[in-house]
């Protein structure tokens, strides 16, 4: 006999639900006899009828306690194998929750399961009454003349009960799932904690990857385009110096090309330097910053505490902060005549402060430079603060946690 797929699925689901519920009866109700035993002993203790009772009372209580983790394991297996739900391995953690489930909620669920299974068995028995009634001894049937009519009603009732078993079983499975996951499952804060760990790790990976990429681009440009440009400018310079007998027009062209080649070198150098200077890897932040300060178009006072080397990503961000900040000062700070860069390390915090004596009024919400800066600071869990009242002075303060 072949069933249409829908009915087959429904039947499979029913079988799964019933198996799951049936498997729950024993582990859920296992504690009940222990309770009863303890109750009897407790009664005896209070009544004073048995002098050994107070001592023996310890046995069921100890068993109750010991049963918790074991029963939880059984429930984990039951949920995984019969319902496809993964519960975390609790072991000896969260004993209160484990006891709550196995000792308090479990018996109730067990009772419901038992009731449902009873309903199923009774329903089956009633629905098939006309099939087995002939097996009942004839003396009983003689004594109950209306039994055929009763049997017909009973069949109807049984069918109704069986029909009710399907949604009830599904409902009970859902209820068990809810309760099981709520009590034995991962709590929301656990889940968030794990998620934060995942995100932190993947973000650190992304930051490192971006750093490596910057380094690679810097290296490629240094070995390729920069050397070619210098070579080009050198050849033009040689032409300018040696070809003195050219017509003036040709000389002009060579001179213009020479100038432009030198400008191109300047521009490319500036760009590449902003990516990730090689000296940052070799000598660290302290050494890399003097190049930045010296190239700024206004006088910069640089004060760097003697620093130990820290994570490459943190040094990279600190360098970028100073680079961007000084570019910003040069571009936007009106009437700034000088800037000061201070780098200090206090415990696990690297603090970078850039101040200028311009007219202030800088707004971090505007301008992509400042926004990008704040983003890169956040990428290593740093904080970015800026104070720039109209009239000045402007002060930018960045704190970066540095491990080690």
């Amino acid at each position, binding site marked *: 006999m072949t069933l249409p797929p829908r009915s087959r699925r429904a039947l499979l689901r029913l079988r799964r639900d019933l198996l799951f519920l049936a498997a729950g009866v024993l582990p859920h109700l296992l504690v009940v006899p222990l309770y009863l035993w303890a109750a009897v002993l407790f009664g005896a203790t209070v009544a004073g009828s048995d002098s050994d009772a107070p001592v023996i009372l310890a046995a069921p209580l100890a068993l109750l306690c010991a049963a918790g983790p074991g029963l939880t394991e059984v429930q984990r297996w039951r949920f995984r194998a019969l319902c496809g739900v993964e519960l975390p391995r609790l072991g000896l953690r969260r004993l209160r929750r484990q006891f709550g489930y196995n000792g308090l909620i479990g018996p109730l669920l067990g009772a419901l399961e038992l009731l449902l299974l009873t309903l199923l068995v009774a329903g089956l028995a009633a629905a098939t009454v006309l099939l087995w009634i002939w097996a009942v001894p004839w003396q009983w049937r003689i004594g109950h003349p209306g039994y055929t009519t009763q049997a017909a009603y009973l069949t109807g009732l049984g069918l109704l009960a069986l029909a009710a078993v399907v949604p009830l079983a599904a409902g009970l499975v859902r209820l068990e799932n809810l309760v099981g996951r709520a009590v034995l499952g991962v709590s929301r804060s656990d889940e968030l904690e794990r998620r934060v760990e995942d995100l932190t790790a993947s973000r650190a990976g992304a930051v490192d990857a971006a750093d490596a990429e910057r380094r690679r681009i810097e290296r490629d440009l240094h070995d390729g385009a920069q050397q070619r440009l210098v070579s080009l*400018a050198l050849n033009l310079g040689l032409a300018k110096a040696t070809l003195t007998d050219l017509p003036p027009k040709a000389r002009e062209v060579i001179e213009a090309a020479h100038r432009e080649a030198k400008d191109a070198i300047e521009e490319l150098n500036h760009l*590449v*330097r902003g990516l990730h200077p090689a000296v940052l890897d*070799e000598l660290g932040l302290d050494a890399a910053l*003097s190049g930045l300060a010296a190239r700024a178009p206004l006088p910069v006072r640089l004060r760097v505490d003697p620093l130990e080397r820290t994570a490459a990503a943190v040094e990279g961000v600190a360098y970028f902060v100073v680079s961007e900040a000084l570019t910003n000062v040069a571009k936007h700070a009106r009437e700034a005549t000088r800037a000061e860069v201070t780098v200090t390390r206090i415990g696990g915090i690297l603090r970078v402060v850039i101040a200028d004596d311009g007219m202030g009024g800088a707004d971090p919400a505007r301008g992509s430079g400042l926004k990008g800066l704040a983003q890169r600071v956040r990428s290593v869990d740093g904080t970015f603060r800026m104070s720039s009242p109209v009239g000045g002075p402007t002060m930018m303060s960045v704190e970066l946690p540095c491990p080690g």
Partner: protein
Amino acid sequence: MPGVNAPTALATGPGVSEGASGVRRAVIAEDSVLLRIGLVKVVEMAGFTVAAEAGDAAGLLAAVAEHRPELAVVDVRMPPGFTDEGVRAALSIRREWPDTAVLLLSQYVEERYAADLLAAHTGGVGYLLKQRVADVEEFVEALRRVAGGGTALDPQVVSQLLVRRASDPLERLTAREREVLALMAEGRSNAAVAAQLVVSESAVAKHINSIFTKLDLPKADADHRRVLAVLRFLGVAAPGR
């Protein structure tokens, strides 16, 4: 070479001997082949014979040991590490073969390397941005100056070293005197300083004397005072003598 005008009266500094007798040899270390070809031309233009070319620090040291050249032109970033191989090679060349002057070239100059270099040697060293080779005449002059025992520091090196200096007696100098001192630090002669600032050479000499007085420098020989003034200016400790 036709049309090459030797820079006029620019070469000075300690022990410069313009047009010394005999062939002057140079060794070049640069890993970019393209640039090496250009460098050879410029070095030859400055009157040197290129004895050897190297692509890394090991090759450079071997070439210097073999040829004992008057000058080595060295790229800072070379294989295998592509970091500061050139600087370390320069320091060991100056230590082991003091007769070989070293001019370092780099895409970027770093005050830390300059300080290392100057702390060990005050003459026969140079540290310039690579792009300076494009200004052929000035570069040729720098080559001769360094080979003659003088110095050639990139203006960017000088300004980087100045960024580092905290307040000190230099505050007593006038702006003009500081300009003069900065040019001296680059390795320029009095005449070159005068030309740059568009003043007379005697005015420069006057400024320099005033600088010596303000910095309380001992009245030893003029070259030594000059070196000391520059070192004080750059905030680099003078090498032990």
